[in-house]
């Protein structure tokens, strides 16, 4: 990812929050909103401009699940691990995705197409186990369905 105007982007965000106590988390939110994740270069620039040690920045970035340290994929696969989905077999779905895409939780495939994230409860427990790919919801998913869901999106990419 080419991060243009990174210094200015960070400056704008840091200035916006400069008078607010405990502003680091807001700054990082804004950075993620802008780039879709928090690039290392941006974290370094935030460190320089806000006088926060990088060690502190990464304490925050890695503590909250919400923050992403890698660029998001073209498609974002979220697997719900809330109680209902967990009991209905979500762990097997995660296994299958890992196996098929060679991707760990919180990471993006090498080709940049899929990003795998684990979420806690999507608010539709009656449909458990649930996977979403971006906005599209797949309900009562079985292990055998996973390959099809992935293929559906891979095809969409190759057509373009």
């Amino acid at each position, binding site marked *: 990812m080419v991060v243009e105007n990174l210094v200015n982007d960070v400056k704008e965000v840091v200035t916006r929050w400069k008078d607010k106590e405990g502003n680091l988390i807001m700054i990082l939110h804004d950075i993620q909103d802008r780039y879709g994740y928090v690039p290392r270069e941006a974290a370094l620039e935030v*460190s320089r401009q806000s006088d926060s040690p990088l*060690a502190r920045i990464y304490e925050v970035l890695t503590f909250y699940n919400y923050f992403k340290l890698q660029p998001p994929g073209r498609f974002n696969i979220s697997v719900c691990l809330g109680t209902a989905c967990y009991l209905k077999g979500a762990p097997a779905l995660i296994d299958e995705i890992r196996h098929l895409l060679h991707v760990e939780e919180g990471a993006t495939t090498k080709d940049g197409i899929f990003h795998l994230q684990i979420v806690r409860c999507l608010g539709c427990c009656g449909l458990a186990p649930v996977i979403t790919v971006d906005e599209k919801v797949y309900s009562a998913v079985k292990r055998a369905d996973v390959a099809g869901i992935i293929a559906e999106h891979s095809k969409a990419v190759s057509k373009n």
Partner: protein
Amino acid sequence: MATVTKIKAIINGNPVEVDAGTTILDAARKVQVNIPTLCKHPDLTASAGCGICIVKAKNNRKMLRACCTPLEEGMDIITHDPDIVATRRTVLELILSNHPTDCLVCGRNNNCELQKICAEFGIREDNFERILPEIPVDCSTGTIILDPKKCIKCGRCIDACQNMQDVWALSFIDRGFKTRISPAGDIKLAESPCVRCGQCSAHCPTGAIFENDETQKVWSLLQDPDKYCVVQIAPAVRVAVGEGFGYPVGTNLTKKLYATLRRLGFKTVFDTNFGADLTIMEEGTEFVERFVNKKGPLPLITSCCPAWVDYLEKYYGDMISLFSSAKSPHEMVGAMTKTYYAEKKNIDPAKIKVISIMPCTAKKYEISRTEDMSASGFQDVDVSLTTRELIRMIKQAGIDFNQLPDEDANLMLGDYAGAGTIFGATGGVMEAALRTAYFAITGENLKDVNFQAVRGLEGVKETTVNVKGTEVKIAVAHGLKNVKFVMDKVRDAIKNGQPVPYHFIEVMACPGGCVGGGGQPYMVTDDIRKQRAKGLYDEDAAMTKRCSHENPYVQELYKDFLEKPLSHKAHKLLHTHYKSRPLYVK
């Protein structure tokens, strides 16, 4: 002065009275009760990280963590009963469930706090499945080894790194079971702001952070008939090594150490205290040049401490011109050994190996910091060992340390004045420099060479010294957080065009100075720092020659070899350069 409120309470049936704010843990000690803990260290803030120190209070259904709960009026505390001990045991078993059990091959075998507490609790079996995280070992600095899988997440290293030293190399990353110590967001320690002070390793209760053990390297050199091994000991080592052999804290064992080092196989035994005297000649003269002759900016800042050099290059690159260019004492002894001594004794310097015994982990980095550290044409110091490594070597060699007769050093680079020995304590370098600078400025020796104002453990010591009517403003700072305070004051003054607040600043990175160094024996507290320092000040007070310029062997070295302080030759061999370095390599 505000009066301190007193709290009265009961601990295990014993009445206790303490100042308000005293924790249950500290209050219990007053009635001879030790509550076990793995995370609370006297130097550091309580993190309530380990959960071992739980106690019960009457009429309170929860168990309280003694390390961070202040004793309250009327509390009735029970620290030990079968229920509490059983709970502690479970906590301990849970800690062990993700800690390796290869204690026999761990660097902390026999002095690990976790191992000790497991022995006390009589842990004999694993009640929980052992799940070990797979995290690679980080050896990138060559000085401090980070092995996060041995970490029990007590948070001591992080408190030491972030709050005591203000370095911010280490932090926890991730959360829950995945939580681990990591340098600045999962990079290598050598790429982080780490200055190798080693306070993390000195405070770690387990083997998760450990000095790079180079004893084997030294054994090999000692075995090699083609090598001529020379050793030197730093000031602070002599008053700490005894802790490994059952001596009272602070016992000064200089002469026994000389004897030991010869028994280990070193052909020549020098003393870094000589180098300290030599440093004072160079640095003291540098100060006089700047202060009296106005050749160079003020304040002059001392540079003997390699963790401080690293910190300055990373955090204060804009202030390098203020830094003394004099090398640290052991580097000076190294350079003199491979030039002056080699020449006098007609030994091929290529065959000489210089080993420094230091209270410090950063010295391991310093010896190859830049090409200036090879001023003799060879690397001036070949290996730098910590006090802890030396203790292990003595034990491995089967030397009955306590029974050894005293011996003397080889005097050519081994004799020293009182000034040289106090280098090991905060304020000591300043005091030594003032003794010689006074002489250099006035041509007279001080009537009273003691500068009480720069001694002791106050974080920042500021005072004014009257040199025959001229006021010299000085500051002494130890512990990098305190150093930052002093440096920022200087930087602000320069930025705002105001006169600088000091003329001369002494800095030591570790709290207490080298006596509290990152390579010293474990479980240091302020009391221990004071007693080690006392061992040095007592030695100084008993000496007839107390000023560096009175050291006859230093005088001879200048007469025969270096000419005079700051001569061309002295510059080439005894001085160095600094450069601004990035805080993060990537």
